[in-house]
Each structure stands twice: as structure tokens, then as C-alpha cells.
């Protein structure tokens, strides 16, 4: 089943440490290729840590990514979070609305579980 979410890419300290270590090393790569989902949403969509999902934006940009449950109540239901990097950049459109800044947070997406 496919559900609508709002995706927020952002920084994490693990991602920050990973940058210093090396962007082709394990810490950074693991952090930017893991999508955090609220525990309630995981349960409702029958998702377990490590399962893979397809995330699609309104303009049709798409990524397949592994999920993990967000810790505690950090992420409210309906919201997705990922450390910004290659995968989150693939979802960003080019339009900056006359500001120089592409819309990189608060993206309307759909998420569906990949069998």
C-alpha cells in the first residue's frame, strides 16, 4: 500500500562524523542510505528495520531505500527523516523560486513497501 508522507532531510551527528571519516566509508554511507520512519507508521505499514521502500515525490523523482524506526517519539507519524546526501538529493527539483535555495525540506512524498 502507498501512503502520503512529508520527508525532511537533515543533519545528524553520525553523518557529520562520517563526512570527516570519508564519504565512501561505512559510517557516512550507512547514515545517508537509511530512512527513519515513525514507529506507529512502521507498524501500520508492516515494516521492520532493514525493509526496503520506494519513496516518490510529486514531480515523479524516486528512490528505493532501507528503513529504520525512529527512536522513541522523535519523529511524529506522517513525517519521514533521512540524513541528507546522495539519496535525498535525488528527490530535489531544480526550481529555487527566485531564492537560490532548492526546496530540500518538507517534501510531499508517497512511500510504498517493496516486497
Amino acid at each position, binding site marked *: 500500500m502507498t501512503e502520503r508522507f512529508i520527508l525532511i532531510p537533515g543533519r545528524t551527528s553520525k553523518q557529520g562524523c562520517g563526512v570527516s*571519516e570519508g564519504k565512501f566509508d561505512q559510517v557516512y554511507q550507512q547514515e545517508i542510505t537509511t530512512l527513519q520512519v515513525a514507529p506507529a507508521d512502521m507498524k501500520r505499514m508492516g515494516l521492520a528495520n532493514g525493509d526496503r521502500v520506494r519513496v516518490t515525490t510529486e514531480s515523479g523523482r524516486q528512490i528505493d531505500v532501507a528503513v529504520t524506526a525512529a527512536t522513541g517519539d522523535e519523529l511524529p507519524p506522517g*513525517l519521514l527523516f533521512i540524513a541528507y546526501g*546522495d539519496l535525498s*538529493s535525488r528527490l530535489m527539483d*531544480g526550481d529555487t*523560486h527566485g531564492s537560490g535555495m532548492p526546496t*530540500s525540506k*518538507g517534501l510531499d512524498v508517497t512511500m510504498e513497501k517493496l516486497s
Partner: protein
Amino acid sequence: MATPPITKPIESPATVITDATCTFCGCVCDDIDITVKDNHITDAKRACVLGKSWFYGHAADDRPDCLIEGQPASVAEGVERAARILTEARYPIVYGLSDTTSEAQRVAVAIGDAIAGTVDTTTSVCHGPSGMAFQGVGEVTCTLGEVANRGDLIIFWGGNPAESHPRHFSKYSLMPKGMFVPNGRKDRTAVGVDVRKTKTAKAMDLFFQIKPRSDFEALWTLRALAKSVEVDPEQVKRDTGIELSRWQDLMDRMKAAKFGVILFGMGLTMTRGKHLNSEALLSLARDMNAFTRFVVKPMRGHGNVTGADNVVTWQTGYPFGVNMSRGYPRFNPGEYTTSDTLARGEADAALLVACDPMANFSQPARERLQSIPYIALDPKETPTTRSAAVAFTTATYGINTPGTVYRMDDVPIYLRPALSSTHPTDLEVLSAIHRRVTELKK
């Protein structure tokens, strides 16, 4: 927690550099005591988790100083190729600059001028929108020592310093015992406004978990309350997800504060509304000065992004996204900013200094960058250096090279390097490119 690299068994003398500066994030902590053994940093006292990774992760790579099309080459050959690419281009861009010294930034802007290109920094995809808001309504701010000495109401809006600026609480905003806040944390009320209940939110006295993308509505509610404008409680709850009574309570605390501070992050600038979100926040801080002293400060991400703003501004008159194709500086965010010149397919060559657009830019921008010749300077290997026509492996500022950086509050700090590096510095490479470009342009 990154573990320090294993030191060689033979006991060789360790040297300690006191009050060295960490340039990983905008805190630019200058109280780090670094221990160096066999040209490796083995300890970084008082550095946070990000700082420790920064110092341990930047031992000199044994990669070649220069690669042309991925093949090792001499720096001189790389400089020659770089200068030709930049002088032959009709719409070259110079981008990045926020993780290098101001001395190197000044040469990079000089190159941008000489090749009649466009100079832009990572500000345009960080707090550029806040810079545009500043140009619209102004800004009332202060240095971080004022926050530490006077701030008694600290609001963190759309940012997560606990993860991105780990020592900010203890060094500047929440914990310090200051002249007018002698009891430190106990004399302060900490307020968080964000869509996620982050580690930062959990350290707050009050937390406003607003609906996603409703920062503008929340700020507008506070601006209305500041001016005692009547507002409809249902609509406030519907727009922001928070009861009007809670916003009113916050406004009462803001008016009662002696020295209010709002520190804000990417939640405002990267979300729908962008520069007008920042403008709403800057206007709110100004409005509050009718009642009490209130200041606002954008939480700048990189070690010298504020330096990049300053250097580009004093040399050209504009802070970022400066086009010099006509022989004089022109400014227009949304036209000359790098996300646009790439995504629109306009830039036809690039000089990328200490940045990684191939990892972080929008998809159309990355596709364009992939298709044009560009030069990349970076101490580490990144997706950007991997597909560069010319890639220079340079020494790391603050670890291998001295120089000046500007903290998030524009305070200049001088770097005392801990280790030497076999690689050339950004300044050396850029100066060589500038000399060659000037000759080719004659």
C-alpha cells in the same frame, strides 16, 4: 564516536597545541588542546564528537596531490589545465569556499573576477535566504559572548544544535554563567520550536512541536500577538498545530525577558517560504525591541561560511551569487546562485573549493555538473572530486594550514595548525591558478 587512529608502538615525543581551533562547524571552538604524535592527531581535548572526528579523520591522505581525468599528474600540470578550462569558458562559476581560510577565499574571488565568472558560496544553499531577509528588513544581532552574558530567554527555531553544533549549549547559549545570568542554565528559559522532537527539543524547558511547513504561520501568530492584534484561536490551532494560549504564554515570556535570543536553522530556509520565513523571524525580533532587548542569529553550518560571506561582500559588495560576466559585480539570488546556474544548464565550467555539490545538490544541478569540465579542491575524496576534470588533494585548513576564519557571529579567529601536510594548501593552488589565468587573459 570515532576512535583515534592507532599510534605506532615506538614511543616518540608527543607535542600538544593548546587553544587550537576546530573548524568543522560554525561554533569554531578555539579552546581545543590537540596532542600530536608521529604526524597524527591522537587527542583533541574538549572537542565534541564532530570535532574529534574532524581532527582524527583529517590525517594527510596519501593520495596524489593532483589528478587529471582521474590520472595522477603534477600540480603544475593541473594548474595549467584548470586555467585553460576556466579562461575558455563563457559562463564559468566559482563555488564552495566555506571550508577554507579567508586568505584562500580572497584569491578565489580574484579568480572569479579575472575569468568574468560567477562567484557563489555554500551560503546560497544554507542561510542565503536569511541573507536576503536581512537585505529586506535588516537584522538585530550580537556576538555570542553577549548571549552568554545576557541571554535569559533562548529560543531554538527550526534547528538541532544538539546534533549539528554540539557545544553551542555549553559554550555560548544555555550553560555559561554570564555577567547578567550568573547562575547560568538556572537563569535561563530554553524554548524549542521544531517539527521533530530532536535531541535539542528534549533539552528545552518548553517545546512547540509545530505542524510541518507551518513556521511562517507560527511566526505570524507571534508577530500578531506582539502587536496585540486579535487572532482566531481555531485558525491558529489549525495552522500551527499549537493552541493560541501556548503562543500567548510564549509571547508574554518574550516580553518579560531581559535579553531574548532566537537561534534559527535550516528548518526555515530550506522549507517552502524560505527567505520569507527568515524575514518573518527577523521582523519578529525587531518588533520585540519595542518591549525588551531581543536579538536573532542564524546558526551557520560550516567553519568559515561566515568568512566567505564577509570576503565576497568586501571584495564585490554582495554576499553570494555574484555574477561578473559584464566586468562588474551583479547580484540576483535565483539567477546567479549555483543551484540555478547548474540546474538551468547555464554554467559551462566550474572551480569548486572545499564543497561537495555532487553529493548535496538537486538532481538537475548534479546532472549538469557531471556534464561540464570542473576543477575540485578538497582534502578528502568525495563524489565531487571523483568526477572532476582536475582534482587537487589539498591540506586541511585549521589542521595543516594557518589562516583566518570567521565564527557564526562574524568574530575573526586565527588558526594555529597542528600538523604539516605533504599536500599543497588551497591558497597555493588557487594563487597558482590565478597567476596563470591572469596571463592567459592578457
